[in-house]
């Protein structure tokens, strides 16, 4: 092992090519992962930020707010279900918004939420005509106290504070009380106006196991509802599923390329070292020890490449202006990318094992079986 490490130290240029390619692959893994996480977070932050344990939709809605309706009778059944401690309406509508000092055609797509149970970071439902805004609106120039004009009727909403990480479908959000939400929808989207006491969904807090409570709620409503945890809502989202499948496939292919690169590099290196390994075997080195040296070298090269790739990925995150590209690099993503590369290093090296095993120590002295 020490011999392998000394080789790395004394002949670093020999390994430069492999480090460069692994760095690019590592950076690509982190970039893809960051984009996937950014897209997922940007699309579902408003859901994952819910403090509610469950969200109740009507059964045939496909867990989509726009297609879901919970009438007062169903809401009462939900509220009366064993284990339910609180319920509150949760509605959303997409509208165009004009920020102060913006031109008449300079619209920003926003999602206006009407809520009763505040999500994480959001205060209690504000007074009529007021709303909390997601920080991405601040990035676009909005300030506390600004009045945003929303919808074709230019309904006024005053921003009373900013909240982090509450975007929805990659758009900024406004968080108003249910009455404000209803009046704005009534003015701008009359066809989407809800009946009295009707909500798109219900945010529900429960005691005990949320999944068991979800089953009880759906049973109590006679199957007219679909109740999911916030995480379940995200998982059920077809868009998120497609993103995960697409990016997962690309990430998987990148890891496969890393395996091939490492396998080819160390296969070539092992072929070059056949003479040296023959001598070391003649001197008493076991194949296992030589292979362990190969694996150690691959792991160290991969770690060096991962460090550089992480620095590049972090630099990219800093360099990207907010809101331009949905890119979010988390520690989990960095660790999983480095772990994937390390796994690729071990698997790639495994292709050299047979070659190492087959090296005949007698070759060192000129004789061979």
């Amino acid at each position: 092992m020490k011999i392998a490490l000394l080789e790395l130290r004394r002949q670093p240029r020999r390994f430069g090519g492999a480090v460069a390619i692994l760095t690019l692959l590592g950076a690509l893994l982190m970039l893809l992962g960051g984009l996937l996480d950014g897209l997922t977070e940007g699309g579902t932050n408003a859901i994952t930020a819910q403090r509610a344990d469950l969200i109740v939709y009507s059964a045939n809605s496909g867990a989509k707010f726009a297609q879901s309706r919970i009438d007062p009778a169903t809401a009462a059944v939900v509220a009366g279900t064993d284990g339910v401690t609180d319920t509150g309406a949760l509605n959303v509508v997409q509208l165009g918004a004009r920020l102060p000092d913006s031109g008449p055609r300079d619209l920003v797509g926003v999602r206006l939420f009407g809520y009763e149970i505040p999500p994480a970071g959001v205060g209690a439902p504000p007074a009529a005509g007021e709303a909390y805004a997601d920080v991405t609106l601040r990035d676009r120039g909005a300030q506390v106290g600004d009045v945003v004009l929303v919808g074709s009727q230019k309904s006024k909403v005053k921003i009373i504070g900013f909240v982090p990480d509450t975007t929805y479908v990659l758009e900024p959000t406004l968080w108003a009380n249910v009455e404000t939400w209803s009046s704005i929808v009534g003015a701008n989207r009359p066809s989407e106006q809800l009946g009295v006491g009707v909500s798109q969904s219900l945010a529900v807090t429960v005691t005990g196991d949320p999944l068991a409570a979800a089953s009880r709620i759906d049973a109590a409503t006679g199957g007219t509802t679909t109740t999911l945890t916030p995480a379940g809502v995200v998982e059920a989202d077809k868009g998120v599923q497609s993103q995960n499948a697409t990016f997962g496939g690309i990430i998987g292919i990148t890891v496969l390329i890393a395996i091939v690169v490492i396998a080819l590099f160390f296969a070539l290196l092992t072929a070059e070292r056949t003479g040296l390994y023959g001598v070391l075997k003649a001197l008493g080195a076991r194949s296992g020890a030589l292979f362990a040296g190969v694996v150690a070298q691959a792991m160290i090269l991969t770690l060096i490449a991962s460090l550089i790739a992480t620095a590049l990925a972090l630099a990219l995150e800093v360099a990207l202006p907010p809101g331009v590209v949905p890119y979010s690099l988390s520690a989990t993503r960095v660790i999983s990318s480095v772990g994937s590369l390390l796994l690729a290093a071990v698997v790639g090296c495994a292709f050299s094992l047979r070659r190492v095993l087959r090296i005949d120590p007698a070759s060192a002295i000129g004789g061979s079986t």
Partner: protein
Amino acid sequence: MSDVLVMTDVRKIYETGDTEVAALDHASLTVGDDEIVALVGPSGSGKTTLCSIAGGLLSPTSGVVTVGGHDLTTYSARELSDFRRDQVGFVFQSVNLVPFLTARENLLVIAELGGGDTSTATTRADQLLDELGLADRAKNLPSQLSGGQRQRVAIGRALMNEPSLVLFDEPTSALDSKLGDQVTRLIRSEMKQRGTSAIIVTHDDRITQYADRVVHISDGVVLDH
């Protein structure tokens, strides 16, 4: 004088297609304690095969090989690795030092492979380098050493594990006659100082004068022993 190496009726058969080639044919050889044997023969005569079997690099097809009283023919591949590391020394024809290790580190390779005490091994390596006239070259890479110095490092490496038997494969073939003579005298001196047995594979007649005994081999048959 006890025997360090005893090879009895050893055969080594290689199969090439339907034919069998006997690289060693009922070869027997003994090497006594403190004895230097020159193994002489033309190319393809089987001397390298004999040397490889004596050093545990090859297993014979039949026959018995004992080194220091241990029957190598009963050893597994793993045990043969340990035997080579602990019991014998090798000096290869092309020296074969590890190119990215210094002279001292090349000697310490043996200890590294065995996982032994590093400080003891370092002391021994420095002592050997001093004896071989390489104390001031301990930190030099092989590429920074002359051919003779590299050969001396290889001899030092072969002596690191205090072997009972050292096998030299054409040790002077890459050296000019003057340097070859110096190295051969050094080999004899080092072996005799330590009471270590040696087989020197060669077809250089000048070496034979430094051996205690000359054994000829031809077509896999040991002609005198």
